[in-house]
Every structure is written in C-alpha cells, then in structure tokens.
C-alpha cells in the first residue's frame, strides 16, 4: 500500500513540477489536471470518497475545460 501511495505522490509532484516548467500552456494545464486526478486518488486512499468525487469532477474536469476555453481566447505559449 505504502509503495502505491508513494508512487502516486511522486507522480503528482512531478506533474506539478512539469506544470511549472512547460512553456506550452496547454501542456501545463493538462499537467495541473493530472495533479488534480492524482490528488483525487489520494483522497480515495484517505477514505474521503465524497471529496474524491468532487475533486475529480470539479478539479480535474471542469477547471481544465475552463482553462482550455480561456487559452483559446488568449495565447497558447508562454513568452
């Protein structure tokens, strides 16, 4: 169990770091979506199914969609 948790945390943190470094904002948004997804898995491990559902549906799906709509209207690449 602890191995899986550590793996998920490591993946989550690396997704967050890559969101920091990507020049392509679309990739950064996808990475932050991944952060939310991994976090929602961790919520499930922490016995919080309600929060996991909310994080997956709001944090991972809707926020990403809103980000993408905003990106469509602005610029895709960071100068």
């Amino acid at each position, binding site marked *: 169990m*602890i191995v899986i948790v550590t793996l998920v945390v490591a993946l989550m943190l690396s997704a967050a770091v890559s969101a920091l470094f990507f020049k392509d904002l679309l990739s950064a948004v996808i990475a932050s979506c991944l952060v*939310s997804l991994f976090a929602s898995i961790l919520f499930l491990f*922490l016995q919080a199914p309600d929060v996991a559902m909310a994080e997956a549906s709001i*944090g991972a799906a809707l926020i990403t969609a809103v980000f993408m709509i905003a990106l469509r209207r602005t610029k895709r690449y960071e100068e």
Partner: protein
Amino acid sequence: MSFLQNNIYYIGAFGLIMIGLLTVLVKHNLIKVIIGLSIMDTGINLFLIAIGYLRNGTAPIFSSPEVESILMVDPVPQALVLTAIVIGVAVLALALSLAIRLYKHFGTLDLHKIKELKW
C-alpha cells in the same frame, strides 16, 4: 519506511503548496500564475484531508442502519474541503475571465510587460 508511512501525505500536500506558491512568485505569465494558484488549492485540500485521517478508519458513511459506530475518519475536514474546492473553482473562473479581458486590452499575458505599460 515508517517515516514515509507517517509523512507521505504531508509531503505531497506541502510539496504541492510550495510548488504552487513558487509558480505564483516567480512566473510572469498570468495563466501560469493561475495554474499555480490551482495547484496550491489542491495541496491545501490534500493537507486538510490528511489531518482528518484516522489510521485503519473507514469512510464516514454507514452502509446499513444496523451498523454500530466503528472506527471512522473525521468527517469535518471532508466537509471543509468540499467547500474549499467549490470556492477554488469560483476564484479560478473569475481569474480566467480577468485574464481574457487583460489579453484583450494589452495583447499579452506577461505581468511584467503590463507593469511597464503603466503610466
């Protein structure tokens, strides 16, 4: 191993908070900054849930009415996080609408360039 067992969630949560804060502090691109805020929010939520965890506890849901109260994780942080997630999405949506407006006015999302443009 026991160090990991005790601290892995805290490490994850504060790792996210730190990365988010770092993004907010060092990046100039507004969308990046907003992504940083979102990552920070996720980290805070994870931290709150981790505080309420009870080892070997189950989710605070009674599947049948007969079950007597058993070892369950603390429901309060979960309720708080539900609220915090919704507040987070509210702030993010507002921030993104401002970003769209900003781009329309200045033609850039770079916060430093916008400062230079100022009177």
